[in-house]
Structure formats: C-alpha cells, structure tokens
C-alpha cells in the first residue's frame, strides 16, 4: 500500500515527468498527468522556436494557452546546444519516471536523448515520443501541423457541407486527440511498469491517433468500396441519422440551436413541444424515412419555429419534452454556462505573480483522486533552484560554471 497516494487523492503523486514537449499535443498530454499530481518539469529555452504556449507567449490568447496547457508544471531553462545543458538533462532522466517530447525525429538523437541512449541511464524509463506521422515507416521524416494531419487523415475533406468547400474541424482537433493518446500511452506504460518493472518507448503517431477516429470508414472502404458513403453530409448523419438533425437559426446574431430527433416517439414529442404546427401533418414527414428523404423541407419548417425564439428558449422547451437540443455555444456562452459553473469546469487560480488565471479543469470527476488545479503555468525558469540544487544536488560552483558556459540561456 502506498499511503502517499491514498492520502493525497492524486493518482500520480510521486511520478516525475521530464517534459520537453513544446506545442499543443505535447503539453496537453503532460497537463493530464500534472493534474493528478505528477511532478512535470518543463524544459524550456529562450533560444527555442517561439510558439504559442512557449515562454514568449505575448498575445492574450497565447498566454491563455500557456496557462491552460501548463497549469501546475515546473519550469527550468536548459540550453541543449551546450554540453552542460545536455549533461543536466541526462542527470534528470536518471531521476525521472517519464520523458516526454514531441520534436521531429532527429532532435532527441542529436542530443543523445533518444530512447536507446537514455535507457542505460535509467532502465525503467518510459519515453513518450509524439510525432505527426510516427517514428517508423516511409513517411517518418515528413513534417506536419495539426491542420496538415486533419487534411491527410481525411477529416478536412469529410467535415462540412456537400455544396461548399470543406471546413475540417476548427483549430487542431488532431493535437487534442494526440494529447489524449499520449497520456493514455503513458498510463498504460506506468501500469505495465508496476506489474513488471519494465519501461518502454511509446511511439505515438498523431496521424494514427486521428485515423483511429475515422470509425467505420476503413472497414466500409474495404468491403463496400465505391458504394461507401464517403463524402460530406453537413450536419446530417450519413447512416440512418434521423431528422431533424442540424443547427437551426434562432433570434439574434449568429445564434443557433442544435436539434436531433431520431425515433417516432421523439418526433411526436418534438411536434408536441412546438405546439402541433400544421406542417407537422405533411405526409412528407409521416415516417422516419420520409423525414430523412425530405430533410431540406423539414429543416425549413423547423426553422420557422426556432427563428421566433432565443436559442436558450428553444433548448429549454425542447429539453422539457425530452428532446436532445442544445444551444450552439460560443466562448462567451461557455463562460457563463450554468452547468459548467455548477461543476466548476473553469477554475480561477493564481499564476506566479498572484494574478488570477482561468484554467479548464479535467473533464472527469474521480471520487477518490479528484486531482487538482491550484496554479497557472510556471514563470519561465521559475524552478531552477529546486531542480538543480534539491533534485540534482548541484553545488553553487557547479551551477555557476554551467551558467557561465551558457547552459541556462
């Protein structure tokens, strides 16, 4: 029994992560670990590429991402272009449980920090390597951003309406998916290490993580080929999706309510909630199949009802009748959503200067290990003393020599 874990209510108390990750998928994976008490040491450098969420996040939005992805972590500055910087990194590997990185494939080997090089330093080490396309295979050296992977996987072509350019998922769904996959892989490896004492290398291809969400498409293409439904269907579902199923315009500027009706029972409740309008008796809407076939006409009728109401009213009236309906919420809506408020989804925590920052909490509630978000992202290089002196036991002289050699630049 580990009394630490029992008393703290943190599943990963005592786990140390040496975190070289630098953009979205990477830091969002280690943030999941940090929330549950892992000590995540973020290795940064002012010499590194300036990216959103990095030390030089100057814009308001960049600052938000820095805090959201790095809440609760520690920060040190290491210049990996110096031998001293590399030496300190290797000493940190020796006292860590997990090393995480999402560079392109050549970076860690160039520092002598690829899995096969660090394993002799710490045989039980778990190394998470997250990359766009994986570290093996014919495309291993190709480079990608989240939007590249969304395009490459098929998500861009498939998301959107049939009669307009595809839109793809907004922003970088692929990075968020990669972050979840990275955290899952680390947790599986920690379980395996507890059972066997063995560490391992985790080769996460975000392309594969994203492709795993293509559902039945691979099977469908392999058995049905050209007959497979493989094009954009807007807000309608391609396989017996029910109708109405979509976003309907409401009162106000760019206000919408999402509604989905699948069964005949739901249809009757839906029509009742609308006050039995005359158009509901149209034979074109008499059965589920008919409603799907005539979805354009049906959508136009439904919208005559929604445009007369606010999105909130429409949601409330339809939910009272047991219909799946919800406001298409913007950032502003989410910030005042009563459900998210009641469940404390947004946490207000101080950053290193005592300024209050808004951080998303983990989207699950665990009864014994609720996890914690108690502070924002660390200030750049805020934890040099703890890491160098306490963790590595370096002397004043040693630290000073390294500083002179530029190891902390």
């Amino acid at each position, binding site marked *: 029994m580990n009394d630490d874990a029992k008393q703290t209510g943190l599943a990963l108390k005592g786990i140390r992560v040496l975190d070289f990750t630098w953009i979205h998928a990477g830091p969002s994976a280690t943030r999941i670990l940090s929330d549950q008490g892992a000590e995540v040491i973020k290795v940064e450098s002012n010499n590194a590429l300036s990216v959103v969420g990095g030390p030089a996040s100057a814009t308001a939005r960049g600052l938000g991402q820095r805090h959201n992805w790095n809440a609760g972590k520690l920060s040190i500055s290491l210049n990996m272009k110096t031998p001293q910087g590399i030496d300190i990194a290797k000493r940190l590997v020796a006292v860590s449980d997990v090393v995480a990185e999402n560079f392109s494939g050549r970076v860690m080997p160039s520092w002598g920090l690829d899995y096969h090089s660090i394993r002799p330093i710490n045989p039980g080490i778990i190394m998470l390597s997250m990359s766009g396309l994986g570290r093996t295979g014919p495309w291993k050296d190709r480079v990608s951003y989240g939007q590249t992977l969304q395009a490459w996987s098929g998500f861009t072509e498939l998301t959107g309406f049939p009669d307009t350019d595809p839109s793809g998922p907004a922003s970088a769904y692929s990075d968020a998916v990669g972050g979840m996959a990275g955290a899952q892989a680390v947790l599986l490896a920690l379980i395996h290490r507890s059972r066997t004492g063995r560490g*391992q290398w985790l080769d*996460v291809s975000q392309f594969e993580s994203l492709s795993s969400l293509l559902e039945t498409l691979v099977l469908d293409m392999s058995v049905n080929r050209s007959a497979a439904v493989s094009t954009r269907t807007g807000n309608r579902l391609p396989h017996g999706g029910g109708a109405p199923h979509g976003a309907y315009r409401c009162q106000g500027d760019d206000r919408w309510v999402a509604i989905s009706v699948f069964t005949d029972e739901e249809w009757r409740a839906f029509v009742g909630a609308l006050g039995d309008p005359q158009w509901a008796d149209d034979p074109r809407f008499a059965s589920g199949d008919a409603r799907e076939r005539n979805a354009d006409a049906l959508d136009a009728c439904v919208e005559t009802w929604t445009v007369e109401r606010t999105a909130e009213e429409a949601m409330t009236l339809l939910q009272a009748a047991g219909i799946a309906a919800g406001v298409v919420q913007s950032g502003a809506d989410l910030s005042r959503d009563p459900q998210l408020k009641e469940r404390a989804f947004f946490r207000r925590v101080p950053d290193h200067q005592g300024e209050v920052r808004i951080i998303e909490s983990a989207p*699950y509630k665990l009864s014994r290990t609720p996890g914690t978000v108690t502070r924002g992202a660390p200030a750049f290089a805020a934890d040099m003393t703890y890491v160098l002196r306490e963790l590595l036991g370096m002397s004043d002289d040693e630290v000073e020599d390294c500083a002179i050699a530029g190891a902390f630049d």
Partner: protein
Amino acid sequence: MTARSEQSDMRPALPLSGYRVVDLAGPMGVYCGKLMADMGADVIKVEPPGGDPMREIGPFIDGQSGPGRSLYWLHFNTNKRSVTLDMRTPAGAATLRKLALASDVVLETRPPGHMDSLGLGYESLAAESPELVYASITPFGQTGPYRDFKASDLVGLAMGGYMYVTGWPDTPPTRLWGSQAYHTASNRAYVAILLSLYHRMATGEGQYIDVSMQEAVAATTEHVNTTFNYTGESAVRCGFRHGGQFVATWKCKDGYASITTNTRKAWDDLRAWMDRDGMAGDLMDETYNDHFVLRGEHSAHIEELIQAWALRHTRQEITDFGQSNHHPWGPATTADEILENEQLWGRGYLTTVESADGGPSMVYPGDPYRLTEFSQPMQRTAPVPGEHNAEVLGSILGLAPDEIGRISG
C-alpha cells in the same frame, strides 16, 4: 476479487491483460470499451437477449442490414466478448451484479440514476467490492442543472463549443465528421479509468468516475475557452483558414492541400514558387517579408493571390515541394484514398483480416499509439450475440448450463 492481474508473475501479453471490464455502454462509450479491449482487457459486452441495438447501426456489408453485417458493430467491438441477459429482470440484474463484482471495471452510459434504480449503481457495488472502478459517461455529468438533459453527438458538440467555431462564416455551425463528441467523451473516460487502475495498484481502492460529454468536448477545443477567457472575444468560424492564412488549406488543381507557413522560410519558399510561376503579384515586396503578415491587414489581398496560384498545382506537387523543404504541407485525402496510404500500411496500422466464415476479408484500423513492448495483432473480431455466454457465465460465475439458458434467453 480483483488485483488478479496485479499479482501475476507472468509478463502480460498486452498492457491491460488480466483486467476484466463489464461494458454496458451505448454509442457514447462504445469507443472506450474498444480502447480497453484492443489493449488486452477482457471486455465483456452485455447485450439484451436478441442483441444490442448498436448491431443495427450502418453502414452494412454490401449495404444490406442483417445479422453480422453492421460495420459499426464490427469496428467498435473488436476483441470484446459477448453475453446476453436482460438486466431489467431480477435474475438478469442479479447475474449482472455478480459479473460486475467479479470484474475490475464497469463502464456505462445510462442517464443519471438509472443504474441505481436497477440496484447496479456504484454505491451498491462498491459496498461489496471497494476495489471496483466504475465509469459513467453522460451528456452533462451526474450533477448540475442540466444533468437530466438529453443529448446526441450533435448536441454534445454544440454545448461543448466545438460546433460554433467549425464551418465557414457563411455556413451554419458545423458538426465534426463522425461522432466525435461521443469519442471525445470515450477518450476522456479511458484516461480516467487508467488513472484509477494505476491508483488502485498503489492503494487497493477503486473509485467512481463521472464523465460529462459536454466538458470532454469543451476541454478539447484548442482555442474556444482560452480566446474568450483571455481576450473577452468569442472565436468565430473561419473554415480551414485557422490563424488567418498562416495555418491554412487551399483549393488546388485536384482537391485541397494544407500549406502552413509557420516559419519565415516556409513563407519565402511559397512566395518564391509563386513568383517563378509569375503569380506572386507584389508579394516579393519587402512589405510582405515577415511571415506573420499572413494574419495582418493584408491578409485578404494575400489570400486572393495564394488561392489563384494554388489552383494551378496538384496536391502531390504541393506536398512534394513542401516536404522536400521540411514544411508541414500535405494533401487533403479523400475517403477513397485512405486505404492507399503507404504510411498507414508501412507501420502496420492497417491490417487485412480474413473472414473465418466465408465472408469478405476486411481491412481494420489499428491502435492510436504504439507501445513498443507489445506487438498488437487483433485477437478477435466482434462477437455474435451471446457468443460467450457459456464461457463467461459458466467459467467466471459458475452457473450451470440450464441456468445460463434461462438467464440468457
């Protein structure tokens, strides 16, 4: 019970070998069960006599519904076992209770309170088996003013904030292709389950996991919350032009291609290519030297020039040029091209599985990450209803054949 797996001296065949899961989930959690089954857990899908309604979800082999023909079922239930019982009857509920008590994890997606009403809620099971990990996925969570609200995948995307920002300024808010709100809830639930199993290894204690699909989606949008919380503005729809023209996809000669100009060099290479084609307009002017110009005041002008130029080139030309210069450029793949992807085949992500019973061979997708300690061949295709009644109810619960017949219908 439990900790069977944790006490074994044998090296596990897969990371979750030895863990038993009772899978009661519908579409909101079906992917979570698959993730566990594919990692080696003994996932027992509990179906009503006659089979789970998800067996009737398309697409189907040759477009024809019927037993064993749902590709949805075949995809999401790989490596699971199936037992049939009616949990609404006292005998069925009692059997399910015994099965849950002999398992490590229960996964369910019923409305809040429903499992309690059947005597199968967490409190009741944990009283007998405190080691049990019990995960509930619901649209809005177990608490709060919306806890009894209904939701579909569409409503999950809407209420979580992903839909408002996906699509073009002149289209309605747009769903992501597939059932990504459901799968995001599943992905988050899986993280929470793994955290709980790891915590249990240290402490022996199980716990209850409350996953809200709305929160799962809200925590997966990269920029919706950070933009509003740090700038006071709601992010809006911008199609596939994320970050202005900086991270963007363009219509080209034979489809769409992603051209991210994330560095000065990528931008210089792009405009030099346009210039060689005589289509750079005034972009070689030093006004446009900084690649951040792509999201500045000249963005509309630049967009027009890039778009006109991109139409002259194929996806392959753009990809080859970009990748040979280490820029994250790539094609938007269409669905019918996915099975030709040499990287997915080259890494063994795609596998052809021959049918055991004369049906067609099919291509299956692999796992979202690669754990190098394990090779991960598919163990078993999705089960037929009650395929493992005798195995599971006989061997695990010690029921006699006539009892099994009575309970399983």
